[in-house]
């Protein structure tokens, strides 16, 4: 039985006529879309990781030793293993500042694989369970009771655990044996990569393991402000009254990274604009070639009754098929690349937040629309020229 001629079937047949040319254009569009998807996913992921981290800390202010703000952000936002210390007596001084409601402190100890401990590089966080409001919500949910001395719980992605779901096993930290009593659920924050224990263990750790920390030291104070107080004002008050510390409102945590991200973002935008221009030019060149090559065919179609809209539809379908296939492949490739371990970007290796399925699909759909749109845009002029062909002109040239 004869296949009925349809504009769409003819468009597909035409694309098959020149597979190499079709493939080149698809590849260009695919590369553009994959770059776009990787870039947007990367930026969105880092942004949301920073926001999730600061939101989930549950504190309005973060107070660190003067000059250690960068290191603290490295720990909290980028999950890097860094230490910094200040005197424990500063907790009370912070608590006394007007507008401060509650405070809690944490001490960070950095293990070094093969040097001090039996575990790979990881951050050990000692915290005061009595005053804590940062870890406890997660701990209660998972363990249902406070941590005892000699017990530790690991983050879902800590180097000690790495997805093993460790419970009821021993690990040696700074010469002390700790029983791992559980794994915290994934929080999407820096908590995921650390090991947590009660601060009552600190003296033993210092005595046996000799970490680089003296007795009576803490690393960070988390503070909640009283209702009606502006965290920024309270932070200013702390900075003014306690020279040994820097107070950072929650919203300002990660600003440095976000600013750097803004620069990366601008580079991405510039790159994508240039790539879009190149892809559109390629589509223009390819479809100009196709238009010239098929002028006679279009002339015959027009002579036997095809309207301008039929010709437009024929070429548009071709360009949409090329653009859409290229974009789908690019979006899939870009999505895979965006969520594969990005070893080239430290900030990406350390972010723990994943984008939701909805966000991923949204980014892929936007990439698909942009890729197809750029392809169509590039081909518009040749299509416009072709559909206006006066049949007689091309037929006479034959």
């Amino acid at each position, binding site marked *: 039985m004869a296949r009925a*001629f349809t504009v769409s079937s003819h468009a597909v047949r035409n694309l098959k006529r020149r597979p190499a040319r079709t493939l080149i254009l698809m590849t260009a569009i695919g590369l553009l879309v994959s770059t776009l998807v990787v870039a947007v996913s990367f930026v969105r992921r880092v942004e949301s990781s920073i926001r999730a981290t600061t939101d989930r800390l549950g504190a309005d202010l973060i107070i660190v030793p003067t000059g250690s703000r960068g290191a603290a952000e490295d720990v909290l936002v980028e999950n890097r293993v860094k230490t910094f210390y200040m005197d424990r007596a500063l907790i009370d001084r912070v608590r006394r500042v007007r507008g401060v409601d509650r405070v809690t402190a944490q001490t960070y100890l950095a293990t070094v694989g093969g040097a001090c401990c039996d575990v790979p590089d990881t951050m050990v966080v000692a915290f005061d369970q009595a005053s804590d409001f940062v870890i406890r919500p997660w701990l209660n949910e998972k363990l249902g009771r406070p941590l005892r001395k000699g017990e530790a719980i690991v983050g879902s992605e800590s180097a000690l655990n790495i997805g093993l779901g460790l419970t009821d096993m021993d690990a040696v930290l700074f010469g002390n044996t700790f029983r791992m009593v559980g794994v915290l659920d994934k929080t999407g924050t820096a908590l995921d990569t650390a090991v947590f224990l009660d601060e009552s263990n600190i003296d033993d750790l210092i005595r046996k393991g000799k970490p680089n920390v003296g007795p009576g030291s803490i690393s960070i104070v988390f503070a909640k402000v009283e209702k009606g107080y502006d965290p920024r004002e309270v932070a200013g008050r702390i900075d003014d009254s306690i020279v040994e510390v820097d107070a950072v409102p929650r919203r300002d945590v990660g600003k440095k990274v976000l600013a750097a991200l803004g620069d990366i973002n601008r580079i991405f935008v510039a790159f994508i604009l240039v790539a879009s221009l190149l892809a559109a030019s390629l589509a223009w060149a390819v479809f100009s070639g196709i238009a010239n090559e098929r002028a006679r065919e279009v002339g015959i179609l027009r002579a036997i*009754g095809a*309207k301008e809209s039929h010709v437009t539809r024929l070429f548009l379908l071709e360009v949409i098929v090329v653009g859409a296939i290229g974009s789908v492949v690019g979006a899939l490739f870009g999505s895979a690349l965006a969520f594969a371990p990005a070893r080239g970007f430290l900030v990406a290796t350390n972010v723990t937040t994943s984008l939701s399925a909805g966000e991923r699909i949204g980014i892929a759909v936007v990439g698909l629309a942009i890729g197809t749109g750029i392809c169509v845009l590039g081909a518009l002029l040749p299509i416009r020229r072709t559909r206006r062909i*006066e*049949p*007689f002109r091309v*037929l006479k040239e034959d």
Partner: protein
Amino acid sequence: MACLVAEGLGKRFAVGGGGLRAVEDVSFTIESGEFVSIVGHSGSGKTTLLSILGGMARPSSGRVLFEGADLYSLDSDALSEYRCEKVGFVFQFASLFAVLTAKENVMLPVTFRSPALPPGRAEERASELLGLVGLGDRAEAYPSQLSGGQQRRVAIARAFMNAPAVVLADEPTGDLDEQTEEDVMRLFLKMNEESGTTFLMVTHNADLAGRAGRRMRMQDGSLHEL
């Protein structure tokens, strides 16, 4: 009733710095059901005139009336509908689509018709027309599998697909052998007699031209009755 009326038709092409007059002040009337032949040397303007009448080339001057309506006052879509539904055009060169079979090529004009023929009916008609041009058994062959003459006959069948009121044939038997040429001419005459289709045929062949009810000669862009 007048089927086609040409009034003072002229067509000028820009060539280099000057212009070339392909058709000059041509006027005539063709009644419905007439069979008209036009003879003339190469370059005398026959194909250009046929294209103007077929709605494929806008004249530089004058106008064409089809069943009383001025063709070139129609918008682009209406002119396409005229080419699709009222006119069957037989080109002087092979004009088939290589990726379509003979039957698909014949069915092609149906695609642009509004409303379209049901696929079954279109296929039936295409088979019937291929049978009329003696290619009933070659319906599934691709143009590359057909001889030049067979391709020409497929193109003739295609021109009849939408049952046009007028067929404009430009050297329709140009590369056919004598027997096929005779078959095609008989087919044209039969269609003309049985369905009242109007024919305007351009040919170099004086014998074929002589079998038309009315003959004209084109010379240097001007048309004369014979």
